[in-house]
């Protein structure tokens, strides 16, 4: 479904992605693990068209996405739930959802999808006319997911959906991920919470310093070692000095 080949993105002279190749299969949950600064969010923003890569290719259902504007990428069925959620703080919950459906024109479908979101996220229904900026972190995360779903994506990208949230809320978010997977939505998730991520993923990649360093299915690699690398990066050879 998603094929990434040798993707490289730089901020000025600093190359954050140094040629990343990976793929996500339709109907699966694919997870990308890695420590801070590995380039995970850079990859996500590049996929969404916010950042422009220096080289490489991103094929979504056979179609090249590199060089396309974010609006065209959304229209093709790829939606990103960004890091830090990035809801529209001064818009209401309802308006955030309407904004998520910006590329759609079927008003009846949009309305019924909003109702469906309130079934899926009952907490949002209580806050329908509230400004998104006044929601709690967990509620904002749900809103960000709901907003992305409003574009009816075939592949949902999620960047660190659990970051900064209380354990109970994290569990809730992951149960929603499982639910979406069961409904047939393909997901590509970036996570630092390797423990949770490995429970929902069918396939995972480990990213370190701008490169994919490992890929496999959960259980293939000793989980302890993997979790350590996901949080801290590859261990350097121990040098013992005085």
């Amino acid at each position, binding site marked *: 479904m998603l094929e990434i080949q040798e993707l490289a993105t730089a*901020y000025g002279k600093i190359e954050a992605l140094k040629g990343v190749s990976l793929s996500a299969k339709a109907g699966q949950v694919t997870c990308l693990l890695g420590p801070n600064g590995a380039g995970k*969010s850079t990859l996500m*923003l590049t996929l*969404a*068209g*916010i*950042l*422009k890569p220096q080289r490489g290719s991103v094929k979504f259902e056979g179609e090249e996405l590199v060089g396309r504007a*974010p*609006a065209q*990428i*959304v*229209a093709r069925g790829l*939606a*990103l739930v*960004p*890091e*830090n*959620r*990035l*809801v*529209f*703080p*001064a*818009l209401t919950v309802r*308006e955030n959802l*309407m*904004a*998520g459906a*910006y*590329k759609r024109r079927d008003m009846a479908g949009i309305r019924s999808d909003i109702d469906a979101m309130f079934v899926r996220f009952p907490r949002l229904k209580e806050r329908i006319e509230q*400004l998104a*900026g*006044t929601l709690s972190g967990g509620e*904002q995360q749900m809103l960000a997911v709901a*907003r*992305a779903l409003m*574009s009816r994506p075939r592949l949902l990208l999620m960047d660190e959906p659990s970051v900064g949230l209380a354990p109970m809320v994290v569990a809730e978010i992951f149960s929603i991920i499982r639910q979406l997977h069961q409904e047939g939505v393909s997901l590509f998730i970036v996570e630092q919470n390797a423990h949770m991520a490995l429970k929902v993923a069918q396939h995972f990649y480990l990213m370190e310093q701008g490169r994919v360093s490992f890929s496999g299915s959960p259980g293939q690699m000793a989980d302890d070692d993997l979790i350590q690398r996901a949080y801290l990066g590859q261990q350097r050879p121990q040098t013992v000095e005085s």
Partner: protein
Amino acid sequence: MTDLLQLVVDGLIDGGAYALIGLGLSLTFGSLRRLNLAYGATAMLAAYLGAWLYATQQAPAWLVAVTVIVAATLIGWYVERLCFACTTQDATQARGAPVAGADGREVVALASSFAIWMQLEQLAVNLLPRHLNAFPSLAVSQDWQLGELMVRPDRMGLAVMAAALTLGLAAWLERSRIGLSWRASADHRIAAHLVGMPVERLQTVGFAAACALSGLAAFSILSLDGQVTPMFGMWALLKGLVAAMLGGLGSVRGVLWGGLLLGLVESLAQASFGAQGREFASYALLFVVLVAPWRRSRERFLATAVPG
């Protein structure tokens, strides 16, 4: 008592003009989080083009009105390209949660719009070097007598137009799809990109529309005086800015209340302290609103509202 009522009515009617001139300024700030110092000069140069057409070609009032509005739109587009397009958040460099103005580009925009202000004003003065220039007059000399009150119908009409335009625009921005996308782009550029909105185009069009409004305001206000002087640009910027800031910069409905309040305070201050008191009162009012304690709760809200 009647005198006081008359002062209030006069003040509110003047306030309509302030709201009208502040509307475009507030819209610009609302969409870009940038202050356009060239705003008054844009309206002034457009008005001068209209006055020039009126003086040299004996153009009728409607043609002058169209000219002023179109010219203000085009000059606004020029200002946007030069000062604002390159200094708003660049999508390819955005990372994490961008906070407007975090990187000093707003200062660049402010300074360059000041430079353009000088440039536009100089152009206008070169076009029509005399201090006082004729402008097509739509003034009605006959006052309306409403009981004890005297109302100038032309000024009243201007105030009603300002109120209708402001409230209508605010309602449209709240309900329409374009309004939603425009507010969303102003609220969070990256998020707006992510949901597929054409952020850059929305902002260019919004900026030009705000300048078109400044043209409409300039024509309406100047046509009541039947003349234009080089002071108009400065006047428009100052009154518009105070009205917009009183109402909360960026708020469309707020600019109407801000304008009315400014007009009211000026009218009462002039009656009590004379012409100088009028100017003093408007800035004192601005000062009070800017340091008032209730601002704190708003800032706290903004601090929590901006993620990251």
